[in-house]
């Protein structure tokens, strides 16, 4: 089965999920989700509050975070590749390793994240850094 045909199937499944307004899964419990978020190492790459690390989970309207069905679909993905060299890409979370109810608990916990980053202008230390960047270069110092 060639690469492109695989992609086609993926798109079809994705479209169906979006269009069909798949049945709303039962809501997860954020409290349990918090421990699972730690146990399965999600914090490892996404930070404890979903703001640091590789990929933001907060302040984004990506459907993976927007819809639980897409979130579940996304977790079960990537079963079919294992690059020979070590990788820190998004791992696959199989049903066995992370059953749906638990995945939805994690999903509920992720939904509690809020982007609380103040803007640059309101952070004094950032102002100092910018000022120093703007200063003329003195060789000796």
């Amino acid at each position, binding site marked *: 089965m060639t*690469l492109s045909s695989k992609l086609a199937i993926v798109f079809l499944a994705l479209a169906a999920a979006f269009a069909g307004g798949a049945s709303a899964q039962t809501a997860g419990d954020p409290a349990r989700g918090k421990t699972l978020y730690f146990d399965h190492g999600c914090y490892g790459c996404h930070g404890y509050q979903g703001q640091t690390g590789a990929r933001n989970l907060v302040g984004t309207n990506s459907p993976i975070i927007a819809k639980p069905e897409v979130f579940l679909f996304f977790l079960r993905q990537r079963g079919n590749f294992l690059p020979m060299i070590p*990788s820190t890409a*998004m791992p696959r979370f199989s049903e066995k390793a992370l059953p749906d109810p638990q995945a939805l608990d994690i999903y509920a916990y992720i939904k509690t994240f809020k*982007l609380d980053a103040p803007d640059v202008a309101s952070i004094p230390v950032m102002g100092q850094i910018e000022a120093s960047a703007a200063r003329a270069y003195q060789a000796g110092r």
Partner: protein
Amino acid sequence: MSNDAGARELGRRAFLKGAATGTAAMATAAPGLAEARARTDEAAAPEAAVAAPPPNASQIARELSASPPASLTPLVTRPGSDLMVEVLKQMGVEFAAANPGSSFEALQESIVNYGDKPNTMPEFITCLHEETAVDMASGYGRAEGKPMVALLHGTLGLQHAAMAIYQAYYGGTPMLIIAGRDDGFIQAHTADDMAAMVRSFTKWDAHPKTLPEALAALQEGYRQATTAPTGPVVVVLDTEVQKEEAGDFAVPAYRPPVIAGLDAAAARRLAERLINAKNPRINVGRLRTPQGVRQAVQLAELIGASTSSQATVGPMSFPNRHASCGPGAATDYDFTLGLEIGPADVALMGPTIASIAATRDKMGVAFGGLRAKPSPPTAPLAPMAVKIGETIGLDAEASLPGLIAAVQILLTAERRDAIAKRAALTAAANRKANVEGVRKALTVKRTGWNSSPVSLARIYAELWPLIENEDWCLASPSVLSGSHHRELWAHNKPYSYLGLPPAGGIGYGAGACAGAGLAARERGRIIINIQTDGDMNYAPGALWTEAHHGLPVLSIMHNNRAWHQELMFLTFMAGARGRGTDRAHIGSTLRNPFIDYRKMAEAYGVAGEGPIEDPALLRAAFKRGIASVKAGRPYLIDVITQPR
């Protein structure tokens, strides 16, 4: 590799995204400088920071489809590393100690997740330094007489553990070292022939190319490690072999090695000389396994011989307070049998590391003690010339069953009661000698009894009544703390005292005690570790491993606040040159500031107390310590001691 390869530095954001697509698109547009940084690095990727606006539709599609990299490998249902764990399980490997590294990520994942009871037999033991992992395998190997696994990460792992491997080789300690190799990842961590770096101080090594070869190599490695001359072996496992699909390949059955002993005729001749002797004696050196020790005891009891033992200087020797152990009623022995030791009329001496040193040392390092040129007589640790009549170059332990059988055949009724009578006399004489020996030792060891800093003899003496009825193992080298256990304690188990660091290397003690702690945890034993401060300071992370895995190790610091041997040598040197004896402490002492070992232990999560300067406080502290380790919690007591 251009000079600035090391200078590439990867931006934060990009490191994960880059990795996912790294393999597919390696072309770096702008000269993105990736810092080759970690033991397990990332693929280079453009370093532009990603703004935080919401991803558009195409990004989602790309994310979802996550275009797989060019080298697509189908889902592995039965990975090679699972079979490797199965092979280790069948050989009874209890532990795999390691400092984690990406070159054996597949094997680590299998150890942790494979099987109905994952992460048991072998259990993954987390160490903070590879040197500690190999020293733990040494401690375990000397206590149990069989190998466990130490996992090392590529070239760096082998280098980081080099001294510990050298000491396992010099001490002939059975150990299975697995070095992971990932030839496609960080180039500094791989090499064509990694094992070459340690070939001159390991017994055997292999670099299998396929999974079947790898499974066979693990089994052959175990055999080589446990066959005389026992020692550390290295198996290099490529990540491809660990990750490949095993399909329905069956794990081969393990065939244990056959070690040659005396043939029937020789056994009979020897049995006759033993039986006919009026006052036979058996000198017992270091055998290979506890089984060997049991058979040596059986032989001595059968023949009613008096015996000498090495139990007070190392493992796997004759129980030194056994009724037959001691000078015996009369010291004019008419026939002496040596088991791996002289002096003896007939000595069974198996091959030693020295016999294979030349074949292994392709680099021509020619280590002292293993090289052709004999070591000068003045050198400590040099073999002492000892009178041996006839040496039979066969493994003593392997010869014992045959010898025992031959003796039993020759035992007639009247020989049995003559032997019984002799045995009773020997037992009484030995007990008297024991009691006198202890009495004489105590009169000497009482000097400095109440002095502060605490005298070392006081430590060993206070410990004995508290551990006498425990199943204890003194795993720490004791010569720097006066070896007072040798006269005061009864060394009746194969693991009572695990001996000195085999090549005199400081830093071995902490790891060896933790390793003996692994064996102890499974068998309800406790470990006594009289820990010198210099030794502890090389890789103190062993304390965290003890806390993390609940190892029953009681560490009592012999805290003389110096590498004291060096201080004494330097004071002498300065004296010989007539200058600055009051500056000899520079570079040889741990002063200003003094190190607080209780605080260090607590930092690693190990309960501790001290520093204790008043000897009267020792007993209560030792009681608390023993109670703690019996409950599976390691404990450290800092004692400020007399230097020697």
